[in-house]
């Protein structure tokens, strides 16, 4: 398996800053907005976004949450390995709110579909948007498009795009893994 870094530490930080300005442009003071991360990997990105938003506008207090999609997945009993559930943390009512779903890599769109189902079990938001750091274009199984995109990556089905975080893996970067054909 070969890997190469497509976005490095500096690039990751730059992109997060841009995403934050885009969010501020659309949501101003976030008074009616809740940012919700997809468990488990979306939470790292959301934590970074919140930290950066505070840096840009210290008086900003965006509401956040995280949602676990395990029980909403469409590949239950179809995948190779069982999935362990993570915690859902939804302290704020989403009724009538604007929601931004946050995840690191968008690929087939199935996770986002599950997340929307899970989200609607908590109430009826007025709008749901999607923010992803990596958008693997042309690989969608479902008609889902993100509003905020960190970076677009064109990749083969056999390739793997993995986003690492300083808190978890010790490094901020995006890597493209190529599995060699025998």
């Amino acid at each position, binding site marked *: 398996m070969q890997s190469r870094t497509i976005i490095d530490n500096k690039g990751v930080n730059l992109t997060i800053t841009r995403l934050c300005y885009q969010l501020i442009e659309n949501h101003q003071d976030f008074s009616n907005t809740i940012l919700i991360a997809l468990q488990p990997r979306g939470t790292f990105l959301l934590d970074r976004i919140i930290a950066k938003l505070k840096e840009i506008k210290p008086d900003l207090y965006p509401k956040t949450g995280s949602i676990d999609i395990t*029980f*909403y997945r469409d590949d*239950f009993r179809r995948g190779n390995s069982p999935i362990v559930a993570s*915690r*859902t943390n939804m302290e704020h009512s989403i009724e009538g709110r604007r929601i931004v779903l946050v995840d690191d890599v968008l690929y087939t769109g199935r996770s986002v579909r599950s997340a929307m189902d899970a989200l609607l079990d*908590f109430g009826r938001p007025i709008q749901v948007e999607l923010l992803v750091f990596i958008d693997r274009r042309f690989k969608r199984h479902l008609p889902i498009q993100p509003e905020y995109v960190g970076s677009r990556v064109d990749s083969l089905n056999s390739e793997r795009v993995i986003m690492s975080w300083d808190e978890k893996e010790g490094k901020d970067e995006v890597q493209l893994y190529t599995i060699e054909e025998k």
Partner: protein
Amino acid sequence: MSELSVEHLIGIKSLTESDIQLIFATADNFKQVINRPIKKVPTLRDITIANLFFENSTRTKLSFELAEKRLSADVINFSAGSSSVSKGETLVDTVNNILAMKVDMVVMRHPNPGASVFLSQRVNSRIINAGDGAHEHPTQALLDSYSIREKLGDVAGKKVVIVGDILHSRVAMSNIFCLQKMGAEVMVCGPKTLLPKYIDKMGVKVETDLKKALNWCDVANMLRIQMERLDISYFPSLREYTMQFGLTAQILKELKKPITIMHPGPINRGVEISSAIADSEQAIILDQVENGVAVRMAILYLLAQKIDRPQ
């Protein structure tokens, strides 16, 4: 660990400690689900579950049915009283007839010990034991330990006394296995006649004085006297049993430290536990019922994962 080591839930005896931890961790998630405005998830929508109750049950049956419905499974119910069992059909035939209607999982309660293991070897379905005679009642033991974990933070290192009819109790048997696997110390307490002869060989302490037992423990699990199973007289009278083994406010007041009171239900108020204690802050009896649904959801979910994938 993200998968159970067993294919069926026959008893706690066949589970490992990490199986139990996995069930508890999954139950945490489901407890969150059943406390939401919309208390359901779509996970098991392509699974059909049969609840076969060859013996009376209210709580366990309702709890299982609710757990199944909260997971969006299709549910069929069967009670022995109104079935062909009275017409002479065997257990395997009854179950195979139900499975022919494309049922994926079976939850069974049966008056004969070993009925669920017998079935698991003969029919092609996942079996969950909801109580078989005086053998095991694994889901009750799991929800009991789960409730202790919730109330006291952990099961390991805790001292638990099981009071009452140990001889006829499947709840006691499963609880002993479960608590010991989780690292708790277990004591049984009751009249000598209702304690199995070699119970100390299971590594449990034996006590016939309720006060001593309560002074030793962190948690007391009060069992019901199962009058329907008492074939001979094991104690002179119910009143005398209450005098010696009934839990009252007076006894609790004399203890050195507060203890947690549990009861698997149904309660006989004024027999093994007084009304005031059953309704007190120390009793977590209704928490046990709530946790029962979450724990059963976790078991159904984890076993359903092991059903062959659809083609």
